[in-house]
């Protein structure tokens, strides 16, 4: 501690003004220069390699540059770097023990970047959070949800849990459940659904549209119309095709039933017994 105080007194003497000016120049010029280089590198790499790589490279340059300036300034001020590094080692050990979670997040972050399960601008689902990846940082991933909330997810959580990358592949399959009344001709319904799919300009011809009979429900015969679209047109196709299905079914007289419940009292051939309660019954009850 006394060595540190002596060093500070030495620095503040008038004859060390040149040193102070050099330090000021390093800080005043060096920091903006490193920031500018980092930003330029990020712009260049975004164009050439993508947002994810650009972010990593620009942050690496920024941190290295700032570290270099810091050590240079400290050396100018007369601090012995070997002493500082020794102290940093001891401090590092203490910090390490205290920050195991942070270290785990950093290591997890490195694995996430190496695996490339997702990148900046991808849309991912983690747990019940779905949103666009804003950045993949050392400790956490930042996500913007579609209702514009900012979510910070620790990297450790991402490594341990299931992550769904919705926009990884260029095309996606859309499944539209369709229930029709039992009286309808399933073959005819299938043909109409496939016709609707082929006529929709957003629906891809290949992979081909498909209709699958998924089951016999309590109120309807259940089918699933499977169609494919590019990831950009996924929602537009969902809207357009469901609207067309409804309109076409109405035009063709195909019933989409609501849930029915049939009551049987004992034997199916017997009418349901009904007792009419008249005015006499009401007076008797009172």
């Amino acid at each position, binding site marked *: 501690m006394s060595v540190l105080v002596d060093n500070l007194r030495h620095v503040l003497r008038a004859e060390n003004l040149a040193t102070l000016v050099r330090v000021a120049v390093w800080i005043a010029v060096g920091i903006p220069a490193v920031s500018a280089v980092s930003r330029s590198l990020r712009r260049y790499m975004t164009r050439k390699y993508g947002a994810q790589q650009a972010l990593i490279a620009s942050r690496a340059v920024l941190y290295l540059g700032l570290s270099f300036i810091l050590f240079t300034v400290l050396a100018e001020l007369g601090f012995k770097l070997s002493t500082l590094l020794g102290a940093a080692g001891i401090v590092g050990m203490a910090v390490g023990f205290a920050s195991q979670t942070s270290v785990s997040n950093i290591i997890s972050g490195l694995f996430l970047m190496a695996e490339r399960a997702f990148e900046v601008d991808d849309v991912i689902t983690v747990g019940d959070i779905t949103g666009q990846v804003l950045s993949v940082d050392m400790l956490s991933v930042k996500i913007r949800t579609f209702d514009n909330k900012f979510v910070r997810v620790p990297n450790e959580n991402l490594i341990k849990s299931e992550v769904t990358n919705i926009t990884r*592949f*260029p*095309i996606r*399959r859309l499944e539209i459940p369709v229930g029709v009344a039992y009286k309808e001709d399933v073959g005819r319904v299938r043909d109409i659904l496939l016709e609707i799919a*082929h*006529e*929709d*300009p*957003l*629906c*891809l*011809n*290949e*992979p*081909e*549209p*498909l209709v699958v009979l998924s089951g016999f429900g309590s109120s309807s015969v259940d089918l699933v119309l*499977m*169609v*494919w679209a*590019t990831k950009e047109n996924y929602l537009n196709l969902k809207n357009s095709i469901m609207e067309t299905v409804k309109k076409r079914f109405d035009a063709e007289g195909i019933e989409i039933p609501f849930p029915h419940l049939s009551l049987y009292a004992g034997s199916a051939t017997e009418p349901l017994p009904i007792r009419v309660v008249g005015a006499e019954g009401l007076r008797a009850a009172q």
Partner: protein
Amino acid sequence: MTLSVGELRLTLFQDKTELLIRHRYEISEEGAQPPKHGAKEEEVRVPGRFAELEVRPALPDRPVVVQVEIPYRLDPGNETSIFVRVPLWLQLFEQGSQKPLVDLPTVVLSGTWFGRFTEGELSYWISSSARTEIEPDPARPYLAITRAVLRNTSRDPLRVDTLCLRTAFLALYDDGEQLWSEVLEISYKGVAYFSQVRKVARSSQPHGKGKLTAAARETSRRSVTAKSFALRGELPGLGFRFR
């Protein structure tokens, strides 16, 4: 003024300050039912007064996918030719300009995916088949004919079934009754390799006749390396194939 080309209905209004270009699509056959899709009218407003406008044909802006009438086998070392009718785009230019005011398909085409589930290209689906012989069809001037020469330069037989034709870098020729594109040569190099696709600067017309009438959309390239052959059912709707 109204132009009808294929299913495209283009209407132009010029007033004092701008040119209004309206377009919609209709099935052109007589007694046709109301259009099933593409009936919504869209318009583009271009500021300025235009004394003269030029209409030019163009080939599609994306690859087109077509199936042969009957799939066949092409043995190593052999070559064959197929012809495809490709719907044209209509481009409207100001006289002397190189940038179109509008660039519209004359027929509404379906999109399709050519490639794999994990990567590929968004393309147009051509419903008519590719054939080994074809006749000009002056009654449908909005369709150009493209000849593709298929060469099997690999050691394995090639099943010619579904093809992806890159027409964006082909120019158009006019022989007076039919529009023909430049010839496309596709060399199949094997299952593990992409095909070499090259354009030949002559008309697809059987006798090579025709006057150059429209430049290619992409003029910077004469050849590409890309997947050009596929089999029917390679991309099943379920999303996977049993091996």
